[in-house]
């Protein structure tokens, strides 16, 4: 079976419509990945899967709230709470919001620190 990977850049305001398209096309939500770019903005990658094909929607977030996709994919709350707890992002209208207590971390939003910040890990 042929497996493909596709990365598509979108605008944040198109997220819900594009996600709805994926849902209607029979894709499942495979993961949501957050990261920081060099400018300090968040980079979001929403990945969907169907028949071995991975389609990822990518957009840049400057810190403004992101609308939850939980009404389309009920289990998105896992990833959205992770985004909140590890990256300190704002996600609104979540179907299950743990209020920052999904991950019990020693420091808030630990994944936002730069490469040379935070606890020393390997000397």
């Amino acid at each position, binding site marked *: 079976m042929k497996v493909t990977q596709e*990365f598509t850049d979108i605008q944040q305001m198109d997220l819900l419509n594009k996600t709805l398209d994926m849902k209607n096309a029979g894709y499942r939500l495979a993961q949501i990945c957050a990261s920081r770019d060099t400018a300090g903005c968040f980079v979001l990658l929403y990945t969907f899967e169907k028949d071995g094909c991975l389609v990822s929607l990518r957009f840049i977030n400057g810190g403004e709230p992101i609308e939850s996709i939980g009404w389309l994919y009920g289990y998105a709350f*896992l990833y959205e709470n992770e985004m909140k707890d590890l990256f300190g992002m704002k996600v609104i209208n979540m179907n299950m919001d743990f209020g920052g207590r999904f991950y019990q971390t020693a420091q808030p939003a630990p994944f936002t620190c730069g490469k040379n910040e935070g606890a020393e890990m390997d000397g």
Partner: protein
Amino acid sequence: MGKRTVMPFGPQHPVLPEPIHLDLVLEDEIVKEAVPSIGFVHRGLEKLVEKKDFMEYVYVAERICGICSFMHGMGYCMAVEQVMGIEVPKRAVFLRTVWAELSRVHSHLLWMGLMADAIGFESLFMHSWRLREYVLDMFDMTTGGRVIFSACKIGGVRRDIDAEKMKRFLDALGKVEDGLHEIAGTFAADHSISHRLTGLGVLTKAEAEDLGALGPVARASGIGFDARTHGYAAYGDLKVNVQTEQSGDCMARASVRIRELYEAIRLIRLCAEIMPDGPTETKVTGNPNGESFARLEQPRGEVLYYVKGGGGKFLERMRCRTPTFANLPALLEMLKGAELADVPVLILTIDPCISCTER
């Protein structure tokens, strides 16, 4: 309506080999809702990728989990190899598949023991883990390690299995299969087991799809999804028979795992039969520049690796979405309406790996 009580379950509990916390909202002894929280042993290994050379990070990836450690290393290597356009020698790909399937045997035997222990069947627990011990010896025989053996590297594998060792390896596999007949028969036919597992924690196919269930949890509900059928590693040369059940209860999940044990043994034998001769690694030059996903079918379900490199020796991002993390919504659904006494069995039925979840 009875009085509602919130009972904390975990992070330390006899049935939990690793720490996860659930707040169980009970009405009398019936679970009305379960609220999870994780992070008690969160290690931030995804973040660590920014400080570790991408070649060295294989050792870290293997330490995400002590049960499917080889598959974590393999998934990370596959993702980096795809970014760098590295073609792994065919023999190395087959060797990876052998160890990956042996990891599945290890994991499912461990799960059988834990489940037997949870329902109070101590002799079955001991027999399951006795067999698992043979599997660890097989890892030791072929890699020099029993739990974390660093056999996988970017570009191939560090160890080869010569003909003489492969013969001993297959002999040992035959002994594991013989032992498996006994415990699998007990699991399938013993009244006390079926009494505890049948009809418990039913997850319908529609619910499993809506909740994003993966692995044996999904397959026990009739979803024939198995990432191996997409042909990564040597699976393109092997025909994987996906094991499914329809009833979606704890017994169905046990049945799927038991049949997957036999399927894993069959695949290992097939790999040994058709494995080509040749080199086991390719020289790696340069640094990863680009992004890619790799998907593997771990014992608990599909794991997704995403790596992104910018041309330096440190990756910019590594993402590991593990199957236990994805199966949490299914677990929460199963717990609703369950009796408190069944909670340990229901938690174990998704075969949770908190170490993977707390990557």
